[in-house]
Structure formats: C-alpha cells, structure tokens
C-alpha cells in the first residue's frame, strides 16, 4: 500500500461534525470507503500516520474529536472519486440530523 500511495490523490477536510469521528460517523465513513476499489486512507496530520479508511477498528482508534482536520488520500482505481465522495460525506456532517447529533 505504501508504494501505491506515493502517487495518491490527497485532500484535507475539517471535521465539522458535532461530536467528532464517533461510532455512527465511523460506520458511515468506512462503509463508503469500502464501496471503492481504491486504497483509501485518512490521517489527523498531513504527514500521517495514515489509517486504513476501510477499517472501522483503526478509524475509531484514531479517536478524532470534533474540529479535527482530517486528511484523505487514495490510490488506485477511481481514487479521485473515492476522495471526493468521502470529503463530501464529512462536509455533510455525515448526514447526521439535529436529533441524531446530540447523542451520537
């Protein structure tokens, strides 16, 4: 994965979610990542450590609170599309409505 990532497509998004990368947002993020053939990774800093965005165990272990800047990168088939889709999900606050956000 490291080698492929050297030609990766990258971007940065600020998590705007009310509570951070908690259980429900992490489920959505990993599910979406898994829908792409590309390798997709996230990080809390521009220079990593990079985390497999398809593993909820690893994404949750990052313990990213609200207001964290999330970095995304992907490599392989439809990499650009994968990054754009994940970025959009985070920017939409993981599609969490008002009633959901309070207890997520």
């Amino acid at each position: 994965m490291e080698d492929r990532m050297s030609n990766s497509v990258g971007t940065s998004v600020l998590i705007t979610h009310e509570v951070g990368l908690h259980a429900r947002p992490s489920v959505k993020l990993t599910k979406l990542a898994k829908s792409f053939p590309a390798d997709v990774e996230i990080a809390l800093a521009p220079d990593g450590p990079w985390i497999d965005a398809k593993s909820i165990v690893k994404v949750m272990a990052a313990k990213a609170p609200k207001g964290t800047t999330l970095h995304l990168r992907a490599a392989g088939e439809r990499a650009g599309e994968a990054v754009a889709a994940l970025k959009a999900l985070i920017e939409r606050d993981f599609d969490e409505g008002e009633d959901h956000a309070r207890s997520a």
Partner: protein
Amino acid sequence: MTAHRPESVAAGIVASPGYAEGPLFALDAAASAYQASGSPEREADALTAAIASATESLAALAASTEGEAADMLEFQLAMLSDDALTAPALEAVAAGTSADVAWRAALDAEIAGYAASEDEYFRARSADLTDIRDRVLRALAGTGEEQPPAGTILVGEDITPTRFLSTDWSRGGGIALAAGSVASHAAMLARARGVPMVVGLGAVPPAGSVALLDAERGALDVSPDSSAIARFREAAAAFRARRDAAATYLTRPAATADGTPVRVQVNIADPSDVEAIDIAHCDGVGLMRTEFLFGTVLPDEETQLAAYRKVLEWAQGKPVTIRTVDAGGDKPVPGFTVEEGNPFLGLRGIRLSLARQDVFRVQIRALLRAATAGNLKVMMPMVAVPEEYRQAADLFTEELRALQKAGVAATMPPLGIMVEVPSVAIVPEAFADVGFFSIGSNDLTQYVMAAARDNGRVAALNDVRNPAVLRLIANVATFAADRGIPLSLCGDAGGDPAAIPSLLAAGLRDLSVVPAQLAVAKAAIASARL
C-alpha cells in the same frame, strides 16, 4: 440529601434517575469454561465459527431494533466484521494459544486503548468492545446469557449495551455499577427507557439480597431495615408523581403559581452532559464545573478551550457560567492540591488557584479565549475576602492584555463569585464590585451549620432550610437586588422540591439544578406562591 447514610449504603453518580427495589443480580458471573482442543487448526476453526455465530446473533438483534440502539448494534457489527479486530487473535491462535485466551487478550488490548482515552466518549466505547468480546466468548463456550428475572437490580463492574437491550425492563428493575460511565451507550439507553441507573459506586456487593437503588440521590442500600424501605417507597412514589406532573412543565419557562418568572439553569460536571439536555428547556448553565479536566493530569490550554467552547456553542447564546477549578476539600487533584488535616477549611478553591498561579493562568487564558465563542460568565469558588476577588480579576486583566498583544482573539467575561463562605453572605456589601453572585448552598450550609455534607452522622444538621442559612441567603438577595447585581443559586438545594419554596421566599429568582431535576424544579416552582 438529608437522609441518614448507614454502612450498607454505597454512594455513586446518577446516570439515569429513578427508584428500583428488588433482589440483586450479578452481571459478572463467570462464564462457563471453554475446553481448548490443543490443536492450532481446531482452535482457529473454533474461533472463526464463534465469531461467525456472534456476528449472526448480533445481526439478528440489530434487525429487530430501531433508533439509537440499532445504530449502536450496527457499530458493533462493523467492528466484529473488521479483520483488524480478529487478525491479532487468529495470529496468536496460529502460534499455539487457545482460542478463548487469544480472543480475550486481543480484545482486552483494544479495550485498554479506549479505557485510556482522555475523551469521555471514546472511554465509554470500552463497554461496546467488552460486549463484543463476551459475545464471542459465549459463542465459543456454547453458553447463552443467563437472563436476570424481571424487576431485579443488575450489579457489576459495567454493563454492555446489548445486555441492556436483552433485559426485560417491563416490570421495573435498575442498574448499579461499580465503575461504568454516564456517557456509555447503556446509560444513554437507560435514560431513554427510564431505567434507574447509578454508576461509580466503588465496591458493589454480591448478588442475592434485596436492595434499594435510589437513582435520584445516587445510593444503593443492600440491607435496608424496614424504616429505610418505608422511606424509600415514599420517596419513590413521590418521585413518580413528580415526574408525571413535571413532564408537562419541562418545556415551559418556569413561573410561580402567582405568576413570578423564575430562571432555571442547569449544573453540568462534564461537557458531554449537554448532549442529553435540550437547551430550549433551560435558561443557560448556572454552574459548569471544571474539575473533570483535572482528573489525573493538569489540562493544557487547548484542552480546556475545546471543552469550554463545546458548551458555549451548545448554549446558543444563553449564559454559561464556568467556575474556575474548585479543587481541594473533597476533590483532591494529584500534583495540585495539598494534603491537609482539615481540607474543607484549607487550601481549596480560589485560595489554591491564587497559590498556584502557574496552573490558574492556563485556565484564565482558556476562559478569556473561550469568551469570544458565546455568552460566558466566570465565577470563583471559596472567595472569603474581597482581596481574593481583586487578585483574581487582576490576573484576568493581565492575561487578557498578553493575549491581545499576541494577536489571540480573547475578551473579558463578567467575573463573579460563589457565595459559600459565610463571611461573604454576612457582609455582601464588601463585594459590591463583583459582576454577579452565585450561592453555593452545599458549602454555605455546611460552613454555617458546622456539619460536613459527607458525614451521615451529622446529615440532619446539614439543612439548607435552617433559618440561619435562609437568613444569610435573604441577606445576599436583598443586597444584590438593591445594587442590581445578578444573583443565582447553584447548590443541590436548587433542585430539591422541598427546599424550593424556602429559597424563593428568601428572594431567589434564579436556580441552577442538575439536569435530571430540571422538570421537577420547574414543577415545584409552579406550585409555589410568593
């Protein structure tokens, strides 16, 4: 609050209010032993099959569940389906470890990672991982979960969310935990379902006996005598009546029976508390404690700033009164507080903050920066003489100048004081230049009555309705009204329906209560006549 606390009573933190009476049922009864085969191949097969079976039962449970509980189960299902979770266990099995030992070790490592988190939300996820661990271990051993009889009080270290969901609550019952967390999924579910739950009880007694769980005050009595049972039933009936009546008051602004409006704010001890409160139901935060930040390490400026901002943003412009750290007394902090023979009369509250300016200035900077994010007010605990307030106010001014010079966004919030040392309540005129007063009725009562609030033997003396305490409160209220200085009360008495009429009569029009008491406080106000 004035009840006698005998030896058989353990005190904890209310995670979900209510009352439960019944036999105890141990959650942590040892699972039946798994018989290892000794062959790595067969162990790997057994573990893989157990994980598949656990996944299947979890999926079935998720399919028959809705809302928050379904989201939680889907999260567990995603975790259990992730190779990153199972790989370390399978590797250990391949190296010769038995399936149950390997799985337990792998999951315990994950659990420890969450348990060590500084964030309460992520800390509370350790219960979800425990749930996953035990589900697979049960599948390995081929045992189901022993179902507690309906109406029992479940006791143990912690409770898993699926355990909560699989329990029959239709005939009452409750949860009493030695550890646990008010932010756990189980606590969230308990509040939603109205199941009484107390966490942080410390040692929890073995199962069997009949017990009383008071999840209004946070107490578990494991061997109550007949008079304790009678008192408990009376309190439980009163609680139910109040809750039913109160539900209709929760969403309305509070006012007395004769139409005088009363502000009702909430006390919060941790920023995550606000997740369970609708800001529309209260007039702001009358007390946000900051001791939670000072658990084991002294918090840095950014950590504090994030915590303060979270609450200010949640409050949507309503006032949030943050109290500077009130360590000392019964709240020691390693590396900060000092050991003293009589800590309630020692170096605590503002005294300690002024003695440890290195620590205090960090908090002051975080508060000054947070003040730009909402309607912040800052109050200092344990002020006894005007000089303490002035010194603290000077530190705020100094730090504000330094921040502005450095180009950091910051602003000066109104600075006020707690009224809890009798010297302030007796001569409030000496404090005419403070921004506001907030009566800390717990400490004021214990200092006026010379009766410690954590000593059951003198609990009857520790009464806010004693005429001496009420006269002092009225003295402050009269002075504050004359000078137009805002005044509120943030002690436990503010949410005690029995004390509310006396507090209103003493002149208070702004009470801050724990969130669980919001509705009952509003109901008690509505039935009071001035």
